[in-house]
């Protein structure tokens, strides 16, 4: 689908989700333009992570549809979402704890592998060439994210903030079309947040990656995003540019008592 015809890469249409009777998301709809950075904000438990999980197929919505790159889905399997260029990071760092930083990031490229099993088993030149190519790209990402010092460290031993960077590396190495980031700056100090914001802004600018991120730090949200969606108790209470949303009385009410 040409960009002119559909400026929206992602559209959430009337999505609902409940767990054992508790409604996590109620009839949620919003659209995300291509190449934009959209922040998802709201108090804890508002359903933000659940929404991200629905977007890349980890959860199945009870109702509603997703439109991605012009196609409509009522559910997208995680594998399919990955193949279609959706990258994801998780709040609790869904990294492969026993594997090194390097190996974790390389797994981001597994869907790009074209070498067969036998070629790998017998270490044929094609397999070795691909491995070298992948290794080179991984080194680039490691360089970009300043992770050289921890390249061979098992990820489980790293600090939380560093793990988040590794997860970002893993998500971005395959040059995703859409990046879903769940609290990419949680647990970071001010300097680290600036660094992370720069990484995200660079990725968005240079690769054209559309970003949807969940974030609590209002300063980051305001400076980084062009579009903000506010959730409260699973419902949308705000949708617009950062300044629109900042002055929305419903949003302010939802946040009363949770000022950062």
């Amino acid at each position: 689908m040409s960009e002119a015809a559909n400026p929206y890469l992602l559209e959430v249409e009337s999505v609902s989700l409940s767990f054992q009777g508790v409604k996590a998301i109620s009839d949620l709809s919003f659209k995300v333009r291509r190449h934009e950075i959209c922040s998802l904000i709201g108090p804890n438990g508002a359903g933000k992570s659940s929404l991200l999980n629905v977007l890349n197929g980890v959860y199945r919505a009870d109702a509603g549809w997703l439109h991605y790159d012009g196609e409509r889905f009522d559910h997208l399997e995680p594998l399919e979402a990955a193949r279609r260029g959706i990258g994801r990071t998780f709040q609790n760092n869904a990294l492969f704890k026993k594997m090194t930083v390097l190996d974790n990031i390389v797994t981001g490229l597994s869907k790009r592998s074209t070498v067969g099993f036998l070629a790998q088993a017998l270490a044929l030149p094609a397999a070795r060439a691909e491995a070298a190519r992948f290794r080179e790209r991984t080194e680039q990402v490691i360089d970009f994210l300043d992770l050289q010092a921890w390249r061979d460290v098992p990820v489980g031993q790293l600090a939380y903030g560093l793990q988040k960077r590794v997860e970002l590396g893993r998500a971005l190495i395959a040059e995703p079309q859409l990046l879903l980031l769940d609290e990419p700056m949680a647990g970071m100090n001010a300097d680290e947040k600036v660094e992370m914001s720069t990484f995200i802004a660079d990725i968005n600018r240079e690769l054209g990656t559309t970003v949807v991120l969940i974030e609590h730090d209002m300063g980051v949200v305001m400076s980084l995003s062009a579009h903000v969606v506010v959730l409260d108790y699973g419902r949308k209470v705000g949708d617009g540019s950062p300044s629109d949303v900042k002055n929305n009385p419903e949003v302010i009410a939802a946040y009363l008592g949770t000022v950062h």
Partner: protein
Amino acid sequence: MGLFLETLIGGLLAGTMYSLVAIGFVLIYKASGVFNYAQGSLLLFAALTFVTLHEKGLSFPAALAATVVVLIAAALLIERWVLRPLANRTQITLFMATLGLSFVVEGISQGLMGAEVHSLDLGIDDVPVFIGGLMFSQFDAVAAATAAVLVTVLALLFNKTRIGVSLRAVADDTRAALSLGINLNRIWQIVWAVAGVVGLVAGMLWGARQGVQFSLSFVVLKALPVLIIGGFTSIGGAIAGGLIVGASETLAEAYLGPYIGGGITPWFAYFLAIAFLYVRPAGLFGERTIDRV
């Protein structure tokens, strides 16, 4: 029709034997979240200890009491040396530890008490009994009765005593129980001791049926399908699971066996469990867990 009923009921009664073994597992799983592979060896150990003491001259009740004391001591040791160090590890790790434990217990059992088969006479003859024109094994009937008594005792223990309530609290939510000041280690010791006694009862019955010998410890493997079908966390489930497995096995052997060569009881239950897991991944009575990412 009569033959079918007889086979079915025979299977159900045999199933109560499985249930007895499974109850021991459920107790430990509920309290400490571990599938105790060593339950089988403890069964063997308990039965062997009893039989050896009895043969050495102790009277039936004295040997029983002494064995219970030994089991309590064993539970204390196990809690201290195996469970506590492995407190927060994965289920698989704990299972493997119990695998190792089973070897230790077996080695000690047979090292100290020998590997010969001991016969165990409980004074219950395995004679056929006729009720309503159908034939049952007297032994199986007694086993079923014993299981019923045991379950009642356990139910009373869990619901009426303070310890029992603590046990259930721990099973429900370990962290909350801890914050209430419940001594987790003590609970584990108690549970393992009780499981040991349950194992003793099961071991004695199994031993009386097929002699107290090494293969007794393999009965634990059959407990897995029983627990999968009945769920790991409920005694009622253990009973239901045992009955289902016992009945299905026996019926399958009688009706399916002749077509494919017979002797299918060693493996039939496992396939049943696989089929079950496809339909109900959490078992009949088990709790459904949600993967929160």
